[in-house]
């Protein structure tokens, strides 16, 4: 399907797969898929598929927050996931994605970092979230964010007595009762749309990626791409984000994830 044709569709409020501009592709997910991870989830939006895995380790806290655990988010665009991904260290897009997910989680106050302190100034839990793309058909940020949240929500903490006993899980990860969702709204020729396929995202000049909590608090915003936004567009996008985030939360609440 040519870009020209896809653009024509967008101009008429349509998508290549029959969706409307503000409609998600089919969303599916599965948690607990990685036995060696303390938490894990695979999330699919249409053909886009991302695994997030949570691993826990114990280490020294940062000197400016001696009684808080540590969060480290890392994203790898695996070369299996797209013909143009290459092996090697994360590129600027993977780094930006990881940092957006990191800021969204941190900004949402989801993790109770003080409960991750084992001994003040000496030993705290380190929460690693590793995001691994399986297939890239667009909208990686939103899919990765949701996979990360689901992985965190299903993370079980191993026993710790001087060293980690990974066989024995003793508790859930200390999370507050929030459900942040990230919604990226893309723009092509002044047309706003969400959850683009890879081809559609290549048409977009700009994107506003917003992380929003159940109580509609904004946890992070990131403008991406070479285009610009009018103030009206920004307002429209914030409103859209609120609606679409609720839609995902409803979708998930019908599943076993609380």
């Amino acid at each position, binding site marked *: 399907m040519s870009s020209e044709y896809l653009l024509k569709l967008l101009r008429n409020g349509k998508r290549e797969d029959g969706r409307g501009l503000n409609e998600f592709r089919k969303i599916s997910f599965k948690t607990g898929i990685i036995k060696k991870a303390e938490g894990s989830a695979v999330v699919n939006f249409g053909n886009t598929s991302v695994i997030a895995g949570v691993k826990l380790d114990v280490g020294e806290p*940062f000197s*400016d*927050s001696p009684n*808080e655990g540590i969060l480290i988010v890392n994203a790898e665009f695996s070369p299996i996931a797209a013909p143009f991904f290459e092996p090697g260290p994360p590129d*600027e*897009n993977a*780094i*930006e994605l*990881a*940092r957006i997910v990191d*800021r969204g989680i*941190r*900004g*949402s*106050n989801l993790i109770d*970092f003080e409960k991750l302190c084992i001994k003040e100034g000496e030993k705290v839990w380190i929460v690693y979230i590793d995001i691994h793309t399986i297939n890239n058909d667009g909208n990686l940020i939103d899919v990765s964010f949701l996979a990360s949240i689901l992985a965190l929500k299903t993370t079980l903490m191993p026993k710790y007595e001087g060293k980690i006993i990974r066989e024995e899980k003793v508790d859930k990860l200390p999370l507050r009762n929030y459900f942040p969702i990230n919604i990226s709204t893309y723009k092509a020729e002044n047309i706003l749309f969400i959850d683009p396929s890879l081809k559609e995202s290549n048409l977009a000049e*700009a994107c*506003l990626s917003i992380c929003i909590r159940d109580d*509609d*608090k*904004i*946890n*992070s*915003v*990131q*403008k*991406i*791409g*070479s*285009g*610009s*936004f*009018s*103030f009206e567009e*920004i*307002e429209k996008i*914030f409103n859209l984000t*609120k609606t679409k985030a609720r839609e995902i939360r409803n979708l998930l609440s019908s599943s076993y994830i609380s």
Partner: protein
Amino acid sequence: MSKSNKIDLIVGGKRLDGRDFFEVREIEMKVNVVNNADGSAMVRFGNTTAIAAVYGPRLLLPKFLQEEKAVLRCRYNMTPFSTDERKTPGHDRRSIELSKVIKSALEPAIFLEDFPKTRIDVFIDIVQADGSTRVASINAASLALAMAGIPMRDLVVACTAGKINGCLVLDLNGKEDNFGEADLSFAMMYSKNRVTLLQTDGEFSYEEIEILIKELKKACEKIYEMQKSTLKDYYQKYVE
């Protein structure tokens, strides 16, 4: 970057450096600070100083990388002596992201299509870092691009805002950035009324963001006027 350790950032209704909430620090602008560059500028917000140099348009090699419009390359870099703890030299994850964010804030303003097969390099060195380094960088880069004679739709103006001790403020300094609750980086083509950067970190309500954007627009107007008069002054001297 922890947003949790509360310290008093507002005392007696004033910020620690004596500023009012929506007061921007002293701003200094200077162009042509790097003789070798095609265009260059220094922008200082209080103790935050950014130097930007533009090289290009220059032929992009190897050939198979050439595109139909100019390729914009931005590099944001902190000097090792710019921070409290010496910053280990090198491009870390933060500066890779900021380079991308700065590029995305500048790109909408540049007529890249005028220069096929070339690249335009925007290099930025932070020589002093006391908060809001990315917006100082954008302001400096915008001036440097203009000095290099790169055709632009408009100058790009940038400023930060944030929430500290629950209060909304403009232009965060380093302490406010580290110990405040939330921050927002903002850039726009002022006369075009288009936003080219919007980035937040920490918890905001949408209403708070709305208020800050309104105040940022006002601040940007002043910065925009400064940019224009800086360029004008330089060219007037140049003509004389």
